[in-house]
């Protein structure tokens, strides 16, 4: 018996003793029902639609291993990334020639992390603090394996950053899915969003996939990215593997277990700069206070009457659902959002920001806020370059480059810069209107934990409005 494996739109099609395509009458290449006679294989189920066996593509490596153990001959048509043979030249990519090299020398902990990953059959997650050089490890993994690689990242900024680093390091064109461009190369960088949309198309094109900020795979939609790719080698990178929602278990199944972890304290003062946190409270102006109390009051009144307690996130969702049909619920939600806006946009926050900009005239400052409109207010008021989801790829690249080369010493950004974007040498960060998520907070911190040339301490300011829900959010972090 021979088992044929082929890749079909995010799945592995498994056929025992398939007939030749030009065989007996009726051998329409994908018509005949020959699912029977298969040995039990991991993840493979009988598909009545095609009359064959089928498994999600991420099971490919396990299926190959099981067939090998069982000693069954395999006609493997899955990898479009393997040179010559059955699939040679069908997409114009001459993958056989992918020979990569790098000049990076790994630091000791980086080499340990990489070895642990290789030991786990080139699968698994490395947990390293932001700034610990995860990119360098991934680059070395690509060189070691020498197969076409897809790098999946959460934001456009990380997309730009990976593309730039890979272009610098490797003498091959770097492909890109995301930010308005869809170009595949042997080494390709993609956003999670683009990868979600393209997974079925390109799932057989890469032998290695690198998930940057791998905890994103916990999201229901994004986990499809890992499910539908056949790549046997999988590398996950993150600063925070464990998640309260248990998503890390999904990640472990799709990418592999955590094979290496390094604490931020292990690095601080060594490779990372030490830092201070300063919290600044501002009072609302009397007008703002009045408006806030009014809006918040409308909201609270409805909530009290409707008996909503907000003990769980479910309650908020219910309120949102109710607002679709109940005008009063909608009014309450609009009031809540107006109250939040007052608090976020408090004038005195901008005054205090002005003070900080004055104090840090000679420093390199990044300002963060969750609200796009506030980003633009700050940009217009202090004439600071802005980066938001609205910013086009070209201008985004220009702003970051100019920040890097010192043309600009300030940048204001919406949360698009949240994760792992490499902005070297910023030593002051100001966070306006942050939310209470632990993960977000540490990653923002990571931004300024870059070693500074003169060894000076980095500072993180957090500006919050006093006596508001926002203040409680900030307090909860401590």
């Amino acid at each position, binding site marked *: 018996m021979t088992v044929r494996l082929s890749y079909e739109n995010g799945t592995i099609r498994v056929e025992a003793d398939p007939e030749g395509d030009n065989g007996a009458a009726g051998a329409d290449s994908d*018509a005949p029902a020959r699912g029977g006679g298969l040995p039990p294989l991991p993840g493979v189920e009988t598909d009545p*639609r095609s009359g064959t066996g089928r498994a999600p593509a991420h099971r490919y490596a396990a299926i190959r291993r099981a067939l090998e153990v069982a000693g069954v001959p395999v006609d493997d048509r899955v990898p479009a990334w393997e040179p010559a043979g059955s699939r040679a030249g069908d997409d114009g990519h001459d993958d056989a020639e992918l020979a990569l090299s790098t000049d990076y020398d790994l630091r000791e902990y980086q080499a340990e992390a990489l070895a642990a990953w290789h030991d786990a059959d080139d699968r698994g997650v490395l947990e390293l603090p932001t700034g610990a050089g995860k990119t360098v490890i991934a680059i070395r993994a690509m060189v070691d394996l020498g197969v076409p690689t897809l790098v999946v990242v959460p934001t456009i900024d990380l997309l730009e950053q990976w593309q730039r680093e890979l272009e610098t390091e490797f003498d091959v064109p770097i492909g890109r899915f995301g930010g308005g461009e869809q170009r595949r190369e042997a080494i390709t960088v993609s956003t999670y969003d683009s990868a979600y949309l393209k997974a079925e198309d390109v799932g057989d094109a890469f032998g290695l996939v690198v998930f940057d900020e791998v905890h994103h795979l916990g999201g229901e939609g994004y986990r499809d990215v890992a499910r539908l790719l056949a790549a046997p080698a999988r590398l996950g990178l993150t600063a925070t593997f464990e998640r309260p929602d248990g998503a890390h278990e999904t990640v472990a199944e799709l990418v592999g277990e955590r094979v290496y972890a390094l604490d931020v304290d292990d690095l601080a003062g060594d490779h990372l700069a030490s830092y201070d946190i300063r919290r600044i409270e501002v009072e609302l102006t009397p007008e703002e206070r009045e408006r806030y109390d009014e809006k918040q009051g409308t909201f609270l009144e409805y909530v009290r009457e409707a008996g909503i307690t907000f003990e769980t996130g479910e309650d908020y969702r219910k309120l949102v659902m109710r607002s679709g049909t109940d005008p009063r619920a909608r009014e309450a939600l609009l009031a809540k959002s107006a109250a939040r806006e007052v608090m976020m946009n408090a004038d005195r926050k901008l005054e205090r920001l002005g003070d900080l900009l004055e104090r840090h005239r000679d420093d390199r400052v990044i300002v963060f806020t969750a609200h796009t409109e506030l980003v633009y207010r700050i940009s217009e008021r202090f004439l600071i370059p802005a980066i938001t989801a609205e910013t086009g790829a070209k201008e985004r690249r220009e702003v970051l480059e100019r920040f890097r080369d010192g043309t600009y010493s300030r940048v204001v950004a919406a949360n698009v810069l949240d994760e792992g974007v490499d902005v070297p040498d910023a030593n002051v960060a100001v966070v306006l209107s942050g939310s209470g998520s632990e993960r977000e907070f540490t990653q923002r911190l990571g931004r300024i934990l870059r070693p500074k040339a003169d060894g000076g301490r980095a500072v993180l300011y957090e500006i919050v409005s006093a006596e508001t829900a926002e203040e409680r959010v900030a307090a909860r972090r401590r």
Partner: protein
Amino acid sequence: MLRKDLLRVSRAGGGYRPRFVGRERRPLAAKVLGAFESTVGEPRSAVTAATDALEAESEDFKLVRGLAALVERECVFEARSTVPPPRVRRAAFEAAESVGVADESDRTRAIDRAADRLGVGPAVVEDDLYADRERKEVLVDADVRWDPDALIEQYNLSLAQTALFDATEIRVRSVDPKALVNAVKRLRLMYELRRTDDGRELVVTGPDALFRRTRRYGTAFARLLRTVAGTAEWHLEATIDDRGTERTMTLSGSDVSVPGVEPVAEPDFDSGVEADFAARFRGLDLDWTLVREPEPLATGTRVMIPDFAFTYDHADFTLFFEIMGFWTPEYVEKKLGQLADVEDVDLLVAADESLGVGEAIAARDHRVLTYAGTVPVKDVVDVLREYEVDLVAEAAAALPESFAPDDDAVALAELAARHGVSESAVEDGPFPDHELVGRTLIRPQVLDRLREEIDDGASLSAVEERLDAYGIDDASATLSALGYRVEWEGLGGGTVREKEASPEDG
């Protein structure tokens, strides 16, 4: 398709039904179109304010937003500025860098410096700094292709598509199964054929659906709906994953259509041979109805859609009909393969004689006739006649030996329909209790009574009324049987006269 947060559905009674809108929303649709037309030349923020105002006055803000979203997509917005905004920003930020802006006076100096550099006034710098932001773009064209009715039609289609985003599986029947199957393949979905009481339907899912319930293929289902809704008759049932609860949504042509698209009542012909055959066959008056591309038939794990089906008008019987024209050897191989695996149905194949495949088809247990040039309708009719003889005999075998309906008068057609057979199966009787007058069975007593009731010289309309009362609508045959004739008066009524004895009456 709309954004998911604009979906409006009713879950009344545990169902899942998009809240479609009808003509009663015409005024609202007109207002939404008007809001865009009246804000041409203004920035997007003003356009949004105009539609927000409609939201406030309507009790259904999601409907307003949905309509507005559809219209906005058809409009053209443009960034307007004196200097390209990215240039303004570069100049302003560079100037700010050298000044070090922390307060208002710093800012003024930086703006002035940037204005000097660009050779424009400071106000231009202020205005153009972010003139390319979406909310500052200007509405330049609101010439939308929909009138209020078409907007409502588009809204309903978009709403149904949006509801399908959360579908995990759909089941479809359509009068154009070939277009359906092609669209399923094009969208890289998969199907299975399922027989139901209402005919064969395609169960459509995606590859990964084998392993888990997934909404991944929702957008593909939504695209598929556009193909399905472009036909005159269709039915779609979707399994919806409504935040973990499984619900069923049913859609049909009475809910959703495609604006500006004439629904396909019958698929296009693949070849002149087929079109020619259909035209000639339909010219005949037979007890068979010709259906173009009927339901798909299962063949292996795929489907075969025969070119035609003949359905017998008096019984539940279908003969499928496939025309194999001259084509490539690969095509012939594929067809023969399909014919070998097709499910057990009555199938007639007309094969071009140059193919030389007659025997091969017969070997696959199908009736075959060969043709050259055009398909001979007569040969096909002969085959149908054979089936008809069997069907009539079958029906006759189930009929009583004589017909004695309770009615005083009943048409043969009605009697045949009651037994589910053609008139020819009942017309020979015997009818122990009735006389056959024309094509109507009438009790002799009724005829006697009528003879007494009808006077020479009565008006035709009065007589027809009497006949009607007995359930007789064939007046002329009945009058003739009773020995009357009608004396016509112009184009209006007539007068009933006793027939004069004619030589034939002797």
